[in-house]
């Protein structure tokens, strides 16, 4: 996972559902197909719901990692507009 270079990073710490996914979705919408989005968050439920929703929308989850007690990092590759 460390060798994947994200094309864009967003920090949505402090946000809760559904705004975590709203922000993540708006970010990925603005990117090109094939680009990778890195999402930093601290809302535990979103570490599960964002990957699931992104897959439902047709994107690929490249990685989910817990950084520390509070934070997660997700890597999502945009697959379609």
């Amino acid at each position, binding site marked *: 996972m460390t060798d994947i270079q994200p094309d864009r990073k967003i920090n949505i710490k402090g946000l809760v559902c*559904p*705004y975590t*996914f*709203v*922000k993540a*979705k*708006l970010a990925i*919408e*603005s990117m090109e197909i094939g680009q990778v989005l890195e999402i930093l968050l601290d809302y535990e439920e979103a570490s599960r719901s964002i990957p699931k*929703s992104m897959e*439902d*929308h047709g994107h690929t989850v490249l990685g989910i990692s817990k950084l520390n007690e509070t934070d997660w990092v997700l890597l999502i590759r945009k697959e379609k507009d």
Partner: protein
Amino acid sequence: MDFTDDQLQRYSRHIILPEVGGKGQAKIASAKVVLIGAGGLGCPVGYYLAAAGVGTIGLIDNDTVEMSNLQRQIAHSVNTIGMPKVESAARTFTALNPDVNVVKIQTRLSRDNILDLIKDYDIVVDGSDNFPTRYLVNDACVLSGKPLVSGAILRFEGQVTTIVPGEGHCYRCLFEEMPPAGLVPSCQEAGVLGVLPGVIGGLQATEVLKLILGKGEPLKNTLLIYDALKTNFRKVRVPKNPDCPVCGGHPTITELADYDQQYCSLS
């Protein structure tokens, strides 16, 4: 489109839909929809389109609010009795969503003003309560190529159809000529269940949003009939009539006629 924090919250349930997203919400925000009538149908259609964030909503109506409207016309209230319906509805819609630009057009539609009144809008919604207006709106939309979402209600039954000129049927393919005056009773004569325009107006607003988003299958070439007593929805296929007097191959209606004269009881 850059959303404010308020807009992110307001439209969050839209943005997370795959069929809408931020791009779809931006399309909704830039859409211009004009409603013919701010009554039974116009109230719920306008209310939901305002909630959805439709950027510009035109309201055409020449009436004032009466107590007898309040059984079904949910944008008006006891506080707006006597006020023009376009003003009363505009206040309600703007209170729900200040993002929306409501254009009040307090006038009686006629063949002389309709083309000018609808020309700046993307989609027309017919919520009128009489046949001369219904045919006038249909013909004006066909002649100017505007998509039209048409709704009608009476007693316990409602109808919805979506007319996209050049892509399907029009109202005259369905009913070529107006019924003779007096044959079909009006709401005033026959009554209407107050919630019925809520159902039909909700369907019309849904059709409008589908057209704006370019998603789903609008009711082209189809008439949807709702029977409230039986809780039955029926779809009737309406093929385009190749000999339709307004949208057919050799139209006989090439400009707007005097619809009221054809329907003398209403003049």
